[in-house]
């Protein structure tokens, strides 16, 4: 009697299938590695998909210079340990102009350092396919996106004119300069991600686990003061609170939550009783209505 596949078995198989499809049909794929939990799952699946070979593509991190220090340490440790080819790109124009979330706001900062930075990197290396860890349950414009999502030569997404996507038959054909963003985790939910991390024992950045950390309350969010580039405003005090992060991004834009969940089980248990969605901790999604769709049309992941 053969075992029935579990829900996670199926999700894993679907993601592996997608990885292989890209490797078989594109000339220059890349995986966008953002160091978060979804990227960690993606990395794990990529290692599985091509075993015993290494993934036949490099991993690109678009750094904004404002990521949590622990994320960068974790990134470099993973690259060393697994021996994958890590590319790091920082938008040199943004560095020159000292673009930062405090003086320029989350919108401009994200656009220059992430969206434009990503476009620069894709053009520089001439990648024709890029894996991302986005899930359809994250946000309602993501729920509309194909697994193989076409981008024109300007990296733009046209949500009103997506290619039909039938069965597991993916249209991977692109003309010169065009590309496809590929989302192997499209059908995973946040619970599936945590459950898989637990099942497979996948390493993640320690910031996901509760610990006493120096935080400042600002604009209704708890911000971890990761370095002294963050100046305190009058009346603000740094407090040592037991906190953790549900998502990771640029530290000044990512709110912590008060929590004592210091294990994966604790995180899952907390998540099951949560009454807010995970993107709530992200300042960038709330800036304006439909902001995620707008960013995606401009080339954001």
């Amino acid at each position, binding site marked *: 009697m053969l075992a029935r596949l579990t829900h996670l078995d199926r999700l894993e*198989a679907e993601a592996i299938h997608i990885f292989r499809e890209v490797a078989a049909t594109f000339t220059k794929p890349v995986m966008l590695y953002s160091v978060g939990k979804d990227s960690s799952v993606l990395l794990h699946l990529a290692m599985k998909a091509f075993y015993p070979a290494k993934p036949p593509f490099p991993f690109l991190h678009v750094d904004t210079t404002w990521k949590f220090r622990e994320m960068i340490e974790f990134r470099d440790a993973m690259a060393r340990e697994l021996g994958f080819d890590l590319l790091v790109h920082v938008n040199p124009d943004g560095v020159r102009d000292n673009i930062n979330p405090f003086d320029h706001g989350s919108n401009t900062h994200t656009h220059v350092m992430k969206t434009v930075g990503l476009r620069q990197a894709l053009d520089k290396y001439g990648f024709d396919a890029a894996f991302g860890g986005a899930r359809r349950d994250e946000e309602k414009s993501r729920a509309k996106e194909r697994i193989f999502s076409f981008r024109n030569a300007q990296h733009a997404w046209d949500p009103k004119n997506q290619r039909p996507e*039938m069965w597991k*038959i993916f249209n991977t054909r692109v003309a010169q300069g065009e590309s496809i963003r590929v989302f192997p985790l499209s059908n995973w939910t946040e619970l599936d991600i945590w459950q898989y991390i*637990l099942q497979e024992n996948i390493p993640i950045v320690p910031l996901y686990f509760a610990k006493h950390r120096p935080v400042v309350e600002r604009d209704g969010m708890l911000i971890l003061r990761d370095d002294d580039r963050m100046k305190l405003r009058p009346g603000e005090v740094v407090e040592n609170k037991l906190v953790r992060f549900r998502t990771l991004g640029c530290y000044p834009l990512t709110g912590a939550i008060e929590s004592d969940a210091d294990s994966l089980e604790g995180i899952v248990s907390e998540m099951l009783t949560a009454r807010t969605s995970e993107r709530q901790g992200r300042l960038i999604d709330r800036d304006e209505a439909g902001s995620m769709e707008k960013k995606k049309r401009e080339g954001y992941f």
Partner: protein
Amino acid sequence: MRHAMATKIEAAESVREYLAGQEQKSLLRFLTCGSVDDGKSTLIGRLLSDTKQIFEDQLAALERDSRKHGTTGEDVDFALLVDGLEAEREQGITIDVAYRFFATPKRKFIVADTPGHEQYTRNMATGASTADLAIVLVDARQGVLRQTRRHSIIASLLGIRNIVVAINKIDLVGFDQGVFDRITAEYASFAESLGFRSIVPIPMSARFGDNVTRRSDKMGWYSGPTLIEHLETVVVEEEATDRPFRFPVQYVNRPNLDFRGFAGTIASGSISQGDEIVVAKSGKPSTVKRIVAHGGDLRSAVAGQAITLVLEDEVEVSRGNLLVSPDARPDVADQFAANVVWFDEQALLPGRSYILRTETDQASATVTELKYRINVNDFAHEAAKSLEMNEVGVCNISTQSPIAFDSFAENRTTGAFILIDRISNATVGAGMILHPLRRSENIHWQSLDVTRHARADLKNQRPAVLWFTGLSGSGKSTVANMLEKKLHAAGRHTYILDGDNVRHGLNRDLGFTDEDRVENIRRVAEVAKLMADAGLIVIVSFISPFRAERRMARELMGQGEFVEVFVDTPFEECAKRDPKGLYARALAGAIKNFTGVDSPYETPENPEIHLQTLGKTPEEMVETVEHWLNERDLAEHQYDDGGGI
């Protein structure tokens, strides 16, 4: 402190237990479809809300959006939860499919909310292609509409066997049983021919939640399940692991010379170490040596698993081929009939070349014949010259190289394909294979050890098919006969296939209609191909009036083997010669479908050899052909001598 620790450990255990329970739940993928404004998005919003899938911040955003774009007055507009694109919220319509996820204590669900507008049918098909059940919404005030029918037929073609007819907005007709009964009967009668296994009608109000997750207290006359009760319990087809093994090779993993693995996802059946398999396209057998996986080899694997197979033998396998069970093989053919749904603004045209893509294979393809279009209203089969956007039809398709497949009815993975435009790269159509053509079912390539090269070498000649085409009485048979005599005398191995002679035997069942002429040529071309494979120089002497069939014959043969010889004698001259007295009878109307009289002869555009017969003797023409053959063999030799060093 000890107490706190103990609580934590207990909590961790209960989380693990909870997750283990989650893993045991089955998954149901379904879609909502139907006409515009029947309330599809509202229904999904209601399902998500009532199954507690909406977070507080999302609900707050929804209330904000409802005031801005909502169409439900003071109430929350649930459609805004799923209509995730700005254009959708502004226009109050659904443009593209949205995928949402929810779970109840009994089951997990992935739901595709698909658009009702006809112009976005391709997005509905996208959502339907991965679903096991369709909820077809019907507005109780409107009844069954054109889009209700179109979506039902597409769902049926895409292999969906379970339907829920959600008779929505029942509150707007006073919860009237008469309306429900009438729509139920109407749907049942039109869907009769669509092959659904179950059709479950449910009266509901998605807006107010009646019979969605909560039993309505306003419809005492309805005793069936609520929507969620039905979704939690409906039995859909499980991936049968006892079906024949199908493994589309997706990627050849070759990190070093010692490892060659074939990666892919098992489409059906199961596989174990030591099992025998066959490579579908070549017929070569082998045995599974290892099933490689990260973290240790597997002993066996089942449908749905993405694995890497290592075989015992060094067989030739590349992406696009299938590894299959030896005793239940798929079809391998380059022609088949299929249902096609067309997505593109530019209509499907028979004869135009598209890129056909199966899960892992790709080939150039043309629609050789559009057999009929299906009228979505009454399912009538209508003659058509093209298939417009959102239309459905049955086509014969021909691919440049053979593909391995099953019928879609047998296997949703190995029986499906998409068509891609060569210039824009757009996905223009989707197809579901019905059956192979040319009656090649159950015939598989036997792998043979003596190759065509070996056979030809033994005869010390290069095989050729000299295809003589021309009007009746043009002199084909005379020249062909004389040519064979000369080649034979020179020690060549030859054979003549003569039109009249073959019609006395192999083709005695065929007449002279266009269809029969096509079949006549097809058979002769196949016989000529076998003879060329055997190493012979084959002389074919057939009127063969149509370019398409001569092209078909050409494409059957190996590179450079097909030699078209146009025996060019004017019609008047042939009619004057009239060696068999046929022209006289045809011109008198006693013979129908006579080439040149009342049936066309399409002259060759680029024949290899053009014999203008007027003023030439048969000997001179034979010399022309011989000369051409010698030149070819000479060129071949030079190439052979120079190329090897």
